């Protein structure tokens, strides 16, 4: 059984949690009496990449914010690394978040801080020595191929560059879980594939558990059928004659529609789904 290892609420002992990294059970949330998510139940095992698909306004981003404790559900249970976050005190949630990286839809970089300070934000909060901070920032920016922009302000960057800085900020502390909220939204196809390549690189190099929200099917299928090739530094299709017939077995799909789960399963199950709504959505 895979295990997720994190510090507990008091930050002392290390808990080896056998079981899913993320587990939603009967989660519902409404805003101003409008139900956004109802009775959502699913789990994500360690090392898995859960792709969350669905039309706009179905609660994909809300689901991600719930997973990070940024929103509290009206009912149901959310367990992250085996810890119930819906009843956890705010201080405990902040501790837990040090093991979670999040990439926001519009990057959400601190506009008054330079790229270096944005990426280093978490390390500064953890009082890491300045020499080490700089070294790790450069490393993270190298990962997203943006080390030349280290001294720039977010306003001087393009949308794609901002998204890459946001990824660097999310991965700098080597999180055990990464949440990507539409990382390719509003980007041109070439920049989008660069971002997906980075997500893939993080998945294949660090094997980090991740939840990725997207409304772009091509991005979702690229993640399911490609792998990061360290030799060429790009993505490459998985061999059809391989053990999984050209499909990455750690990638799972979850499709939402009108606040409910309409599909949850593997790439193969998705492609062969007989559900008329899913079939129409995929087309």
């Amino acid at each position: 059984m895979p295990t997720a290892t994190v510090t507990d609420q008091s930050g002392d002992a290390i808990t080896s949690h056998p079981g899913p990294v993320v587990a939603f059970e009967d989660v519902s949330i409404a805003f101003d009496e409008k139900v956004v998510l109802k009775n959502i139940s699913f789990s994500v095992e360690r090392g898995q990449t859960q792709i969350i698909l669905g039309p706009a306004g179905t609660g994909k981003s809300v689901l991600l914010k719930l997973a990070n404790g940024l929103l509290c559900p009206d009912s149901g249970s959310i367990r992250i690394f085996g810890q119930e976050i819906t009843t956890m005190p705010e201080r405990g949630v902040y501790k837990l978040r040090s093991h979670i990286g999040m990439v926001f839809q519009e990057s959400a970089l601190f506009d008054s801080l330079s790229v270096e300070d944005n990426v280093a934000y978490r390390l500064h909060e953890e009082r890491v020595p300045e020499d080490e901070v700089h070294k790790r920032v450069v490393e993270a920016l190298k990962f997203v191929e943006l080390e030349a922009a280290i001294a720039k302000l977010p306003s001087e960057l393009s949308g794609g560059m901002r998204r890459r800085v946001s990824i660097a900020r999310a991965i700098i502390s080597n999180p055990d879980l990464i949440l990507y909220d539409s990382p390719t939204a509003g980007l041109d196809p070439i920049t989008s594939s660069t971002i997906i390549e980075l997500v893939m690189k993080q998945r294949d190099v660090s094997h980090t558990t991740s939840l990725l929200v997207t409304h772009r099917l091509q991005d979702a299928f690229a993640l399911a059928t490609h792998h990061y090739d360290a030799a060429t530094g790009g993505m490459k299709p998985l061999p059809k004659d391989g053990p999984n017939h050209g499909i990455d077995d750690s990638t799972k799909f979850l499709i939402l529609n009108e606040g409910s789960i309409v599909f949850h399963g593997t790439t193969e199950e998705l492609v062969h789904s007989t559900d008329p709504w899913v079939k129409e959505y995929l087309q």
Partner: protein
Amino acid sequence: MPFRSPEAYLKEKIQAVQDYSVLSGTAIASLFSSPRYWADIYIQMDSIGVGSMPIIILTGFFTGCVLALQSETALQSFGAVSMTGTLVSLSMVKELGPVLTGLMVSGRNASGIASELGSMKVTEQIDAMRALGTDPIRKLVAPRIVATVIMLFFLTIIADAFGIAGGAMVSITVLGLNATSYLHTSYRGLVHGDIVQGLTKPLFSGFIIATVGCYFGLKTTGGTQGVGRATTQAVVVSSVFIIIVDLLVTRAMIGIFGS
């Protein structure tokens, strides 16, 4: 404007009071445990305190000038023009210094705080901060409260001093009073209770400016239009609160010191 039931309106207002109280209480409680953001406190003290000095000096000085000029007519009918110093110093120290400083800083900083935090809210920077493990109340609200309360206290002293100086300038150059006599009556007119009263008010005003600015900033919704709305509301509400709290503090101080 859409019609809303009185019940919904009332519920909304009660919810707002509750949210404001929780925000203020949490921010105060956060000052008594780590982490504390000292660097942010100093940055805010510089921005709110030092940055507000020019407008406070100008406001205080010219208010003192006007007070001296206006009082001449009234005092002349009693043959008491020599008491101008007492009138200016009492008015400045007990009332005009604290209230005008509060209102000027409210206009400058409650709006600044609300727009800064509001912009951060609508661009998800507040959520990003929370996602990165930082409590925004600890990092953004608490330093602003500490900085505003401390700096408003000193800004009020500066406004009082420049107000009395402005009154002196008019009294000496326009009213033909003796400088020593003006300063002597100014000094003699003040008692311990007046100073305490005048310097208690900015502590409340500073708290109001910071908490109301932060409250409206953190409650911002609706993009750039929402930021504009939050800014306006912050200035209006904090200004009204300052005047109301001024009345309450004055009454309490009269109860304590007797005048």
